[in-house]
């Protein structure tokens, strides 16, 4: 791990982005970013898991970096192909270094936000507010990642389209990876916490159901799909609100 790369990742994202674009120092950037992803996301996962406590702290600390790394691994070839198709035929190592740098910076932001989130949990945040706070932290971290990504794509035609394509692929793959590895945020009253929930359709199904729920259309199957322990510990209103919230 290079302290110099870490410093540049935090203080000079434009320089890191230029290094990736110009195929300079890609190995050091990739290694340092990968370590930042694992450590930063694990710390954030641990804080998310602390909402329930116990084994869930370790589960979430493992699963959040796992989901992120798995997403990047699946997305990298697609990013390479998209970039080449949209006028940026760069070496694969440049693309991987760029997306790892973006993910590494966002993970460092998550690491920085973890104490604040932990404090909010400790002050008695309820489940939905906790989910919202975690989502907000993800949003801020995502902005930090997009900053590097946009700079890394450099000037020239097709930059916005390439960035949108990258983000679209990342959301689709990342959503499904995260969906497979849930739960992360678990209610404190939940007695039994599985490492993984039983398979209940996919991320796209969840989005569709959530969309219908928000429009006031409740699907009985989606209510049934909520875990037994959650139903036992939730009021009917909470069950409705719980749909797709994890």
């Amino acid at each position, binding site marked *: 791990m290079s302290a110099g790369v870490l410093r540049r990742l935090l203080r000079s994202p434009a320089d890191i982005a230029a*290094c990736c674009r110009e195929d300079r120092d890609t190995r050091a950037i990739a290694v340092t970013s990968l370590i930042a992803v694992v450590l930063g996301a694990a710390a954030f996962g641990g804080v998310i898991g602390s909402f329930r406590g116990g084994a869930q702290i370790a589960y979430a600390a493992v699963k959040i970096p796992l989901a992120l790394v798995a997403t990047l691994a699946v997305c*990298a070839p697609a990013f390479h192909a998209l970039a080449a198709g949209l006028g940026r035929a760069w070496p694969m*190592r440049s693309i991987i270094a760029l997306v790892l740098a973006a993910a590494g910076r966002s993970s460092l932001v998550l690491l920085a936000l973890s104490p604040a989130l932990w404090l909010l949990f400790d002050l008695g945040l309820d489940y939905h507010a906790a989910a919202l706070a975690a989502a907000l932290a993800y949003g801020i971290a995502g902005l930090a990642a997009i900053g590097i990504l946009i700079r890394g794509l450099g000037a020239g035609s097709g930059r916005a389209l390439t960035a949108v394509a990258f983000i679209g692929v990342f959301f689709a793959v990342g959503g499904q990876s995260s969906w497979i590895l849930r739960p992360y945020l678990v209610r404190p009253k939940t007695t039994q916490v599985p490492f993984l929930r039983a398979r209940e359709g996919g991320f796209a199904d969840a989005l569709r159901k959530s969309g219908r729920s928000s429009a006031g259309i409740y699907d009985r199957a989606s209510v049934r799909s909520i875990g037994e322990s959650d139903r036992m510990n939730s009021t009917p209103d909470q069950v409705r609100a719980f749909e797709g919230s994890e």
Partner: protein
Amino acid sequence: MSLRDLLLIYAVLGVACAVAIYRSSTESRPRAAVAAALALPLWPLWAPIALTSSRSRPAATWASAIDPRARAARSPVSEAAARVEAALREGVEACAGTSLESLLPRDAAARIAAEVKRAAERHAELTAVLGREGFDLDAAERRVAELEKSRASARSLATARLHLENVKRLAALRDRDARALEELSDLVLALRTQLTLARFAGSSVEGVGGIVSEVWARVEGLGAALGGDDDGALDSDEA
């Protein structure tokens, strides 16, 4: 295809990537083993980096990376360092598993590559330092000339001459590093060719041994330069 099948294929590809990374690495064996081990779980991300990063331009220092003048000035030397590293890797691959392996073992190649990297980084730092305001050779010479012309005090003149002398020494160090790296690059390229020829022609190691000795002499020369007293004058506030 079940999840178990997918995991099995993933693991097989991971092992294949790990072997490829270990065999192609010019780093020392422990570092090569770590790089190979990292490929087992993370090969989709790590293998393209580990297998092709030697084609990437070498690491830049913080100072030179942010200074466009330094960036432009260090390119030929960086390219020479990259050529040395690539030639070493090819040389190690060429003699792996043959009687020539003892002439250029992997650890020795890693030490040479490390010295070359240090020299390239020092050259980049020197270039960055000499590109900064106050380290310009022409300006220092003009300053001395002006002081001489205006018949300034002996103390002012002595200070200006000392500054000029220091800048000249820094420039000489930079130029010496550049020349040494260029010469070493040519020599390592010749070594690689010789090893490849000896392997395919089945010839003796006599010709190769001479070049290897010469390479080591040049590398020791580089190492001596880097460990010299001049290092104290090269501290950069950004590096």
